[in-house]
């Protein structure tokens, strides 16, 4: 096991700055998610950690060892990709045992057997050890891929969108499983994803990236409740955060700052539909569309030229075209500099 430190890490692909001067420390045993849209540099960052890419400048450290001269195979890094890397002609048992059989020193047969069974149980394939891996469902293949990497106890575990090919129900299941496994095993884990729900749900800390630049590093709730800029605010959250002009709303700016030039942001769950004449109504809005999601509805509203979203319970569904009031919870209002997008607190 090891900590990871990225020091001024930069990758330049012929003038395209894929990763731009990233500094990031992952403590030993931490679960970090690299989160961002496609093309943000998250996979390139991970490839520099594993050694598949060489940095243009900067250094990757594992504990106090610089990795620039260490080839990928010697870095003790385990990998799980989106496309399950397994031997389809081997049994599940054979796949799990493989890493141990080729290891040096080679463990005894009994040791291998014990370890295979232990890991099979952790990833949930103990019932299908005799099956050919090529005959498994995609869900089970990915469990085998996970177990295969885990069994050799790498110092660092890297996962690149491992669940993005799997169905929604299984993804929801594996989120809890992987989080549980990581805590049990205590391995340092770096998880690359574009799915903010996965990052929020599993990681101890999230590194949000955009255009090769690290935007914010923080716990899921820090990222969600106190985003450092408008990009992070907009990227995280299942229903998009609302951005409104601060100077047009009767809500106080931070430390009495001039609201001109500030963007106000509020998450949909901190707004609420009220009668239009209610004293609680911060603004008057028109109902444009209701999207039922089952447990709740996303209600799309408009206020002047702005689109605003709120959540409501299916029991209290407003009518389309109706004019209602919207109460903004002043305790959960965020402010950003309109010009730079940076948070103003």
């Amino acid at each position, binding site marked *: 096991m090891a900590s990871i430190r990225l020091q001024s890490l930069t990758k330049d692909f012929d003038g395209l700055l894929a990763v731009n001067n990233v500094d990031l420390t992952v403590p030993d045993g931490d679960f970090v998610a690299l989160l961002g*849209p*496609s093309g943000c540099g998250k996979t390139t960052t991970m490839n520099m950690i594993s050694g598949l890419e060489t940095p243009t400048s900067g250094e990757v450290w594992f504990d106090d060892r610089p990795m620039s001269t260490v080839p990928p195979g010697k870095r003790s890094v385990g990998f799980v990709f989106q496309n399950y890397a397994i031997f389809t002609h081997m049994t599940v048992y054979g796949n799990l045992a493989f890493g141990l059989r080729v290891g040096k020193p080679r463990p005894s047969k009994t040791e291998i057997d014990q370890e295979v069974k232990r890991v099979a149980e952790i990833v949930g394939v103990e019932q299908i050890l005799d099956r050919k891996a090529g005959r498994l469902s995609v869900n089970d293949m990915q469990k085998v891929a996970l177990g295969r990497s885990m069994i050799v106890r790498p110092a660092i575990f890297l996962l690149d969108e491992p669940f993005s090919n799997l*169905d*929604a*129900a299984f993804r*929801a299941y594996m*989120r*809890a499983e992987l*989080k*549980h496994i990581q*805590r049990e095993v205590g391995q340092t884990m770096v998880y690359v994803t*574009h*799915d*903010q*729900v996965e990052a*929020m*749900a*599993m990681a101890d800390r999230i590194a949000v990236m955009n255009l090769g630049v690290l935007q914010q590093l923080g716990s*899921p*709730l820090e990222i*969600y*409740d106190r985003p450092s800029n408008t990009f992070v605010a*907009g*990227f*995280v*959250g*299942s*229903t*998009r955060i609302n951005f409104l002009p601060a100077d047009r709303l009767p809500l106080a700016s931070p430390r009495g700052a001039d609201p001109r030039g500030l963007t106000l942001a509020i*998450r*949909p*769950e901190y707004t609420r539909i009220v009668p239009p004449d209610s004293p609680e109504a911060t603004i008057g809005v028109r109902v*444009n*569309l209701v*999207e*039922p*999601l*089952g*447990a709740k509805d*996303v209600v*799309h509203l408009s206020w002047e030229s702005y689109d605003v979203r709120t*959540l409501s319970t*299916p029991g209290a569904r407003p009518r389309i075209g109706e004019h209602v009031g919207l109460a903004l919870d002043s305790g959960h209002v965020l402010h950003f500099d309109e010009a730079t997008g940076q948070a103003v607190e």
Partner: protein
Amino acid sequence: MARIRLEHVTKRFGSVTALNDVSLEIADGEFFAVLGPPGAGKTTLLRTIVGLEKPDAGDVYAGDERITDVFPGDRDIAIMFQNLALYPDKSVYDNLAFPLRQAKLPKQEIQRRVAATSSTLHIDHLLRRKPAKLSGGERQRVALGRALVRDPRALLLDEPLSALDALLRLEMRAELKRLQRDLGRTLVYVTHDQVEAMSMPDRVAVLREGSVQQVETPEKVYHRPANRFVATVMGSPPMNFIPATVHVSNGSLRVVHPSFAIEITAGLEPARPLEDGAPCLVGIRPEDTRVAAGGDGIPGLVYASEPLGGETVVDLTLGDRVVKALAPPTLVFAPDDAVRITFDPQRLHVFDQAGDAALSAAGAEGMFHVHVATG
């Protein structure tokens, strides 16, 4: 515009049955979604409606006309594929005009229709651009425009949003729903994304291995799923299933788990026979499962906690199962915390051994009582 009807449609590819005796009726002007995992037969269903596949058995109707043997180009049904298939070397205008030129419409009529369609879709300012110069959402709209410009009686969309990134997908979901309402056109929408199937259509058909599982409004499907499969594909995180046993004594029905029992008030007739001693599954959605540090609920342990910002998914060990509960973000739990779990009795489901819904508390007020096992 037209009603579309499938009657006992079966389609096989070699030994694989892609569609198995599918009967559906899609109303004129309806927004109809078809939901299922990859391989369920969704795309084959669309291709059968548009005429790219010929069914081995059964018939397809548009309005009152039997179109099973009508050539695809003569069906007056448009389809938009997942990969959009825009002509990269043609401008937006020429992409839109192409199907009209093929139909040999007069030039003025072509101009009029392209103008009307592009204004509805808010792409009139893009008419001179090539597809490569458009954003993902704009390209989507152009492809939609090309399908709409012929004024087809029905429009079929195959996973139209799946290639877009998450934010744009959210935007386009609302946009498509608005558009369909404005156009009032019959729309058949294929997706594997339960959020899309839940939020957009008037009705949804859930498809599994070529067979229709349930056709209802999204909310009925959500609240009264016909079987375990439907309950799993609709809703995220999916419904919890907890194995239990049926107890029948003196005509009263109970569902018993080592940690709790559900008493079902007499008078509620199961949709499927539940026999004494038979294994069954209790179904309860995460948002109807509550977790608290103390109180009267069923004892459980925290397995993991997934903060999502607006809410937290708390995974709980109950017997040998992990069940998911939704909690407000202000409640913080650590792994291995001892907690109490409660279920909303109005939202419980009982599925029989085969996974079919036998009892549902929805709409049957006060019929389910949950008792916590003692000792």
